[in-house]
């Protein structure tokens, strides 16, 4: 089934325009804090406080430009230029094509997900949410440990936004998703498993689950990687190397029943475009269409002012404001910031399980990014999201824990932040909250 996307914003909206499209644009700008809100009430995830300007605090946000509703006036154009500049687009003050794409992609929550859908699924899905995977072999270019971590991260991208749990089991255990590296013809007897085509060409393939209640065959869900490719987990990859995390996450999308998407930026697009270690809203829509969405069950947060810095020497300045900590890193440095999350371990006699880590933050430019997100239970690192490289405004960044293990000793989220060159404003990160959702 393919559902055609209904684009909410189209290019061509410019100063002087009036009407519903302008009102929708103003609502959007209000929602993300670029225009003064008519209704100051805001929800938990998508408050109007993004992005934070220099020295912003809630009081300052009250002074955002005030536009005439339904009229593309100067205040609307100014707010739009602010948004464009922040997103790294040309600040034209008009809704041009790149801006329309931004407006249509930058959604919050799941309420309007059907409008985004251009994924395809055909109803293929697993009847269980507890899926097992096995690593049948590995690839010569990467250590087995790194391949294992790459697969965990790829599954975590899908588990973060669904009730699915992915547990690694032994190769002999008959896992639903069996992972194999192979070259050329590699079909087991009696299976329809196409040959790989050597270096270049296709990178991998996977096998859809059945359409319930049709029976599941052994090869369904399996993912095969062409071992004639040079696989890597290093970002950016060397020329001629291919990011295993990205390709694995794409193939696991097929293993779960998703087809290709025509939405720009979706992981489930047909073409590999280099490392992409987060899902696009369209991927999430497709996933949740099959397996249902997730709501926060037992979330625990810590306020951004509680963040701890690992290497003080790499910090140019640190200041705590009313609702966040602003850290300006020294140019071209990396640092780690740590959130210690208050952890409900046993609630009403039942031990909780991990589902995902949550972060709310803003960086001053795309050269300052949250590169890695590591999640700890006590002394055990239970998932590493490596090289996610998230910059800009992140109202709710979500990082799954694929096997959803029991919680024991307390949650810690450590974020590795790389700071580029540039002005102090461009080198800043505003840490607003860190949290964990348990299940």
């Amino acid at each position, binding site marked *: 089934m393919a559902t055609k996307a209904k684009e909410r914003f189209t290019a061509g909206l410019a100063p002087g325009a009036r009407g519903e499209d302008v009102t929708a644009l103003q609502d959007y700008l209000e929602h993300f804090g670029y225009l003064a809100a008519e209704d100051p009430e805001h929800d938990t995830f998508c408050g109007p406080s993004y992005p934070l300007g220099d020295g912003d605090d809630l009081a300052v946000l009250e002074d955002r430009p005030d536009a005439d509703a339904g009229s593309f006036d100067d205040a609307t154009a100014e707010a739009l230029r602010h948004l464009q500049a922040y997103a790294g687009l040309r600040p034209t003050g008009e809704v041009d094509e790149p801006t329309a794409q931004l407006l249509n992609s930058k959604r919050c929550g799941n309420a309007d997900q059907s409008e985004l859908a251009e994924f395809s699924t055909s109803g293929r899905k697993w009847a269980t949410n507890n899926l097992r995977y096995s690593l049948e072999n590995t690839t010569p270019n990467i250590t087995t440990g790194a391949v294992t971590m790459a697969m965990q991260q790829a599954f975590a991208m899908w588990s973060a936004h669904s009730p699915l749990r992915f547990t690694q089991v032994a190769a002999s255990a008959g896992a639903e998703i069996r992972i194999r590296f192979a070259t050329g013809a590699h079909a087991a007897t009696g299976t329809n498993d196409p040959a790989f*085509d050597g270096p270049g*060409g*296709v990178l991998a393939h996977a096998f859809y689950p059945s359409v319930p209640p049709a029976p599941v065959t052994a090869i369904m869900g399996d993912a095969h990687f062409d071992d004639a490719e040079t696989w890597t987990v290093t970002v950016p990859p060397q020329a001629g190397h291919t990011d295993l995390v990205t390709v694995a996450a794409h193939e696991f999308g097929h293993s779960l029943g998703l087809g290709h998407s025509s939405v720009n930026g979706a992981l489930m697009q047909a*073409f590999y475009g280099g490392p992409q270690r987060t899902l696009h809203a369209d991927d999430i829509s497709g996933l949740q269409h099959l397996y249902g969405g997730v709501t926060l069950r037992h979330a625990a947060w810590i306020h951004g002012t509680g963040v701890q810095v690992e290497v003080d020497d790499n910090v140019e300045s640190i200041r705590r404001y009313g609702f966040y900590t602003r850290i300006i890193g020294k140019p071209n440095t990396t640092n780690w910031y740590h959130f210690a999350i208050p952890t409900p371990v046993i609630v009403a006699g039942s031990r909780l399980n991990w589902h995902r880590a949550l972060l709310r933050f803003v960086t001053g430019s795309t050269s300052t990014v949250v590169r890695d997100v590591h999640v700890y239970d006590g002394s055990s690192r239970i998932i590493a999201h490596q090289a996610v490289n998230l910059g800009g405004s992140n109202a709710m960044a979500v990082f799954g824990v694929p096997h959803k293990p029991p919680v024991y000793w307390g949650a810690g989220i450590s974020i590795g932040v790389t700071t580029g060159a540039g002005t102090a404003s461009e080198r800043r990160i505003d840490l607003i909250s860190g949290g964990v959702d348990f299940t």
Partner: protein
Amino acid sequence: MPRVRVRNDTGAPLTHVAIRVPGTPGPGLQLGPLESGTTSGWATVPVAYAIVGVEVDGDAGPATLQPFDLMDEPPIEHGELTYCLRREGARLSVELESDATTGDGASDDGMSDGWTTDGGTSGDAER
């Protein structure tokens, strides 16, 4: 066997154009250079798909398109396919020309064995 060709709709000349039918071992087909708006000559391939691997170079620098896989891509064993290359900033895209196949299937059933063409040549700017 299907014949394939490429049209340069990137808006700029391409000094190098190569395509590779996914799933087929061996080097790609060299179909360039191609001036802006022009179409390459035909190349006969054992099988084709609606998607194709592409490698180009030009003023805007090199760019590639590499398919992850061939999920849901039926093989096309007859007919003629024109792949149109477009470029938006650094982003290269390829699209099968909509009138290059009959119907929307681009599969065996959708193609006519008697398909005829005037046989485009390099520099052919037909549109």
